[in-house]
């Protein structure tokens, strides 16, 4: 291999365990798995732009948490929401 270099990274214990197990089972060196994984990742992200993926985890600030808490206290539905839900069409069962 030409022009090799070394990288290090902090990863989760579960990711490290996955790497160890996959390397042991497949017989592929960990460095090769990491190299291939990086290439696959970058190619996949190039195919799919950032704007096409919705982040699944939202972290709210203290102020956001307070707003959420007030909202979860279940205030009655607003008149606009009641009017909107009168137009409801049930999603198809699939």
């Amino acid at each position: 291999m030409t022009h090799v270099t070394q990288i290090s990274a902090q990863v989760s214990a579960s990711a490290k365990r996955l790497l160890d197990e996959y390397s042991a089972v497949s017989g592929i060196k960990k460095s090769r798995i990491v190299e291939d994984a990086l290439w696959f990742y970058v190619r996949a992200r190039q195919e799919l732009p950032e704007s096409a993926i919705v982040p699944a985890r939202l972290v709210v600030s203290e102020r956001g948490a307070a707003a959420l808490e007030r909202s979860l206290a279940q205030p009655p539905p607003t008149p606009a929401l009641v009017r909107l839900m009168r137009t409801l069409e049930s999603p198809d069962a699939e």
Partner: protein
Amino acid sequence: MAEPAIRRLLAGDDASAFRCGDPEHDLFLQRYAGQNQERLFVGTTYAALDGPRVVGYATVAVGQIDRDDVPGQARGGLPRYPLPVLRLARLAIDEAFQGRGLGRRLAAYAFAVALQVRVAAGCTGVVVDAPPDRVGFYADLGFVELELVSGHSPIRPRPVAMFLPLASVEAALP
């Protein structure tokens, strides 16, 4: 003229002529909505159809809300576990069908999907990524703005994350 029917996006649906006024939303529908739904399973798009032609869509994805835990600060009344939500990430209407209430129908449809998710897998509410000019519309429905630390929508101009508990949606049902 018959109202456009709403259902899950299918492979044969024609989105080629869709123009909502925001090319980024057009491109998402035409290139990425299908693969996000059928190959990656990271979001589902519900389409409003005029015949075979898509004239509006809403894209939803499951998500969770966590609190930014700062040591030494009280947690208030929020539970310690993440709150599962349905995120209404995109809603767009073809220019020829704007102003006919189709966006409202798609929003209501997405809320109904959230009610189904609540039964099937658990869901506390809907988070909408509201375009800045639609914040008032969602506020009227009872949505509250959420100040986020992370998990912002990647869409530009950046939408405002807003939350509505499903208990309110259920209480509003006829």
